[in-house]
């Protein structure tokens, strides 16, 4: 019993990180129909900038805040310089642009920072919390809490605020959105800022557990992408469920079946779900345009 509980703790810890990355995918996708493969780099930047600012003498909270602000600004710049000029390009071009951006950010990060692995202290210490024979780190609770808060924030934003609906309207039909007076350029910039900020927040919260180096981004991006697709792209609920589901599948497979094939299990589940629900668990049905 305590064994199962430990597997579940392991799963939600990792799943919370995936969920945060998947939530970041959701916002940009909602505003622009772009899946931003550079999302993982935002996570990396969040961790790396915090580490360097902290090492340079800033107190941890300030270092974390500066990392989130800087990364959000980089997100806006990425939108302005790379995504806006490519509007209307086919999906495969957009994939290559965002992967290109991801490679570029990695290359820049190894120059600006370094190639070593870094970490900073956990926010509430390293003493594990014992529950029914299993243990979980306080930092895991921070990550899980972060994922839930971000999810709740996005849910309210997209369903209850005018601006959130403007984002959805922009996604559905850009021209129509402009006609009803939505500043679509602002909506796009905002989406990238928020999405990059969430990515950086994920990096800040997760680094004391996962550690950070210039090349960790692509791993997060793939798992977050898988989570978002499993849940159904564009739906915050889907991103949250998908992210946690992948973390749990991995941990339970590692615990009960084979740790070698735990990543395979996640993808097998995704393939199976997509076979029966081609739009993911909570995805929107979309009609073909002729």
């Amino acid at each position, binding site marked *: 019993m305590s064994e199962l509980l430990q597997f579940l703790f392991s799963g939600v810890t990792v799943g919370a990180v995936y969920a945060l990355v998947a939530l970041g995918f959701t916002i940009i996708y909602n505003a622009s129909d772009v*899946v931003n493969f550079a999302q993982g780099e935002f996570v990396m930047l969040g961790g790396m900038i915090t580490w360097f600012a902290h090492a340079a003498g800033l107190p941890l909270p300030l270092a974390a805040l500066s990392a989130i602000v800087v990364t959000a600004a980089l997100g806006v710049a990425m939108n302005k310089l*790379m995504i806006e*000029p*490519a509007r209307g*390009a086919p*999906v*495969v*071009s*957009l*994939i*290559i*642009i965002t*992967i*290109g*951006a*991801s*490679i*570029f*950010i*990695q*290359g*820049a990060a*190894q*120059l600006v920072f370094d190639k070593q692995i870094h970490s900073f202290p956990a926010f509430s210490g390293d003493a594990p919390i014992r529950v029914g024979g299993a243990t979980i780190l306080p930092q895991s609770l921070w990550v899980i809490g972060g994922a839930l808060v971000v999810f709740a924030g996005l849910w309210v934003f997209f369903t209850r605020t005018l601006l959130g609906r403007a984002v959805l309207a922009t996604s559905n039909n850009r021209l129509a959105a402009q006609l009803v007076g939505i500043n679509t350029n602002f909506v796009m910039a905002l989406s990238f800022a928020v999405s990059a900020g969430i990515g950086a927040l994920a990096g800040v919260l997760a680094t004391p557990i996962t550690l950070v180096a210039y090349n960790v981004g*692509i791993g997060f991006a*793939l798992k977050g*992408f*898988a989570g978002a*697709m499993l849940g159904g*792209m564009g739906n915050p609920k889907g991103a949250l469920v998908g992210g946690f589901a992948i973390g749990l599948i991995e941990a339970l497979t590692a615990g009960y079946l084979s740790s*070698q*094939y735990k*990543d*395979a299990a996640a*993808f*097998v589940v*995704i*393939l199976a779900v*997509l*076979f029966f629900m*081609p*739009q*993911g668990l909570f995805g929107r049905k979309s009609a*073909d345009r*002729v």
Partner: protein
Amino acid sequence: MRITPKLATLLVLAALVAITPFFFPSGYYYRVGALIFVNGIAVTGIVILTGYAGQISLGHAGFAGIGGYACALAPVHLGLHPALAVVLGAAVSALLAYLVGRPILRLKGYYLGVATLGFGILVSMVLNNERDLTRGPDGIDVPELGLRALLKDQGLNLTNGEFWYFFCGICLILGAWIALNLHDSPAGRALRALHGSEVAARTVGIDVARMKLSAFVISAVYASVSGSLLALQNKFITPDVAGFMHSIEMVTMAVLGGVGSVLGAILGAGILTLLPQVLTVFAEYEQMVLGLVMVLVMIFLREGLLPSILRRLRGRGE
């Protein structure tokens, strides 16, 4: 005789393979040339899948891995000649593409992307984990193809580098010829029709699911053969060949050069293969430059380098 685009492409390729060696200052250039041709074969498959049929794959390196490991394993375990191992690899890839393609090609856009990605990751995971068979992440030796020795007996004495340069070059021209013939055939026209609009294609009686599946299977064979040639040439292979980054590399090469055109895609393969070799002087900036090139070409030359350049030239001519 009228020079059709098809003939022009083949002539350009043949001239490239035959003439550039006269300008090679050392044996190393044959190696780079051979790599460009091997990548060229893989991206020609992407042209058929993405350029003609409009489908995305982020897992084609999986097929390259199957082709490569077929050459490492079949001669040892089945006693097959390496040349037959290439065929076996292609057959396994085709069969797998057929089985996997049926369910996943119903998906569209990013969903197809994640499904193919998953497939590629599964293949590379098997190659990494089944140590008893594949010897794991450190890689495995691949036997000699033996064709070079055969040619030597016939009086044609080539260095290893020269042999692989010309052999891969000839394979590439063959592959391009097949792809170009497909382009002009009724099947090719049907593929391009469904690229334009699946619904429209369906209404004129095209069996959309079957056409997509054929494109997927054919492109898998191209990737598999390219993986085999790489393995035989290096006489060594590791699971990296099936990795996610290799899948991305294939798609990027094709789209960068022009995914709608065989020659364009091969140009893309040439550029991305040469780039790290040229950038060794600025090794620190290599990743940044690579990323930047990908972004800029996709923004400013959306159809890819070659089609965009040709269009400009034509525009000026008129």
